[in-house]
């Protein structure tokens, strides 16, 4: 088991997070590691914009999504045809690893990403709220 202490931000509830790394095995690219908020409300794992901005040879997609109010918004995706997604513990060791084909990661303007259901559903995890720790 690996334990991830919740992240504490002033004026907000503490929240679970992990460190994520995405490998593009087709193009031999590595994205991250970067911090991801654990978010069972997100259908897709999302990446922060800074991770997709460089090196500029990654595959991408543009599409229409819907915002919180139901309004259509344009969104960019980081596309990885042959992906390996890794979760790293606070010491940098890989504690979860899985291969995916044809992944599309929405790109968010935030500094951190989201660990969404497309990856979260492949691991056994526990959110220990009182203990303020996320366990894989």
């Amino acid at each position, binding site marked *: 088991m690996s334990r991830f202490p919740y992240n504490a931000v002033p004026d907000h509830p503490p929240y679970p997070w992990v460190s994520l790394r995405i490998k593009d095995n087709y193009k031999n690219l590595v994205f991250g590691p970067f911090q991801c908020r654990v978010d069972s409300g997100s259908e897709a794992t999302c990446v922060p914009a800074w991770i997709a901005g460089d090196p500029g040879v990654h595959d991408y997609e543009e599409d229409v999504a819907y*915002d919180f109010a139901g309004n259509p918004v344009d969104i960019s995706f980081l596309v990885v045809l042959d992906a390996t997604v890794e979760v790293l513990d606070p010491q940098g060791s890989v504690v979860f690893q899985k291969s995916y*084909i044809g992944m599309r990661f929405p790109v968010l*303007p935030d500094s951190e990403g989201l660990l969404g259901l497309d990856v979260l559903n492949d691991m056994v995890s526990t959110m220990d709220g009182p203990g303020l720790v996320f366990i894989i």
Partner: protein
Amino acid sequence: MTVKSFSEQASSAAVADENYLAYLREADGLEKTMAGHMVAYADGERIATGKDGRELAKNIPEEYRYRSLFIKTIGSPQIHFRRPSFRRQGQ
């Protein structure tokens, strides 16, 4: 506020992208004949198709492998964001 700001940025990027525009021009036809397939664009032209990511990767010409390609899954499910923002006011 965050989503709207991102939308404005993304719209500008999308409008300027020749590959996205190339896809939009043939999107109706592709949705009728290749639903569920993946397609790749470069230089404003479709360069490869495949029934999934693995087949598409095989079909992309080698000279495009290390270029930034526009990849589209035909008829892919639309994303819905369920929260307004992660950012605090004033940031």
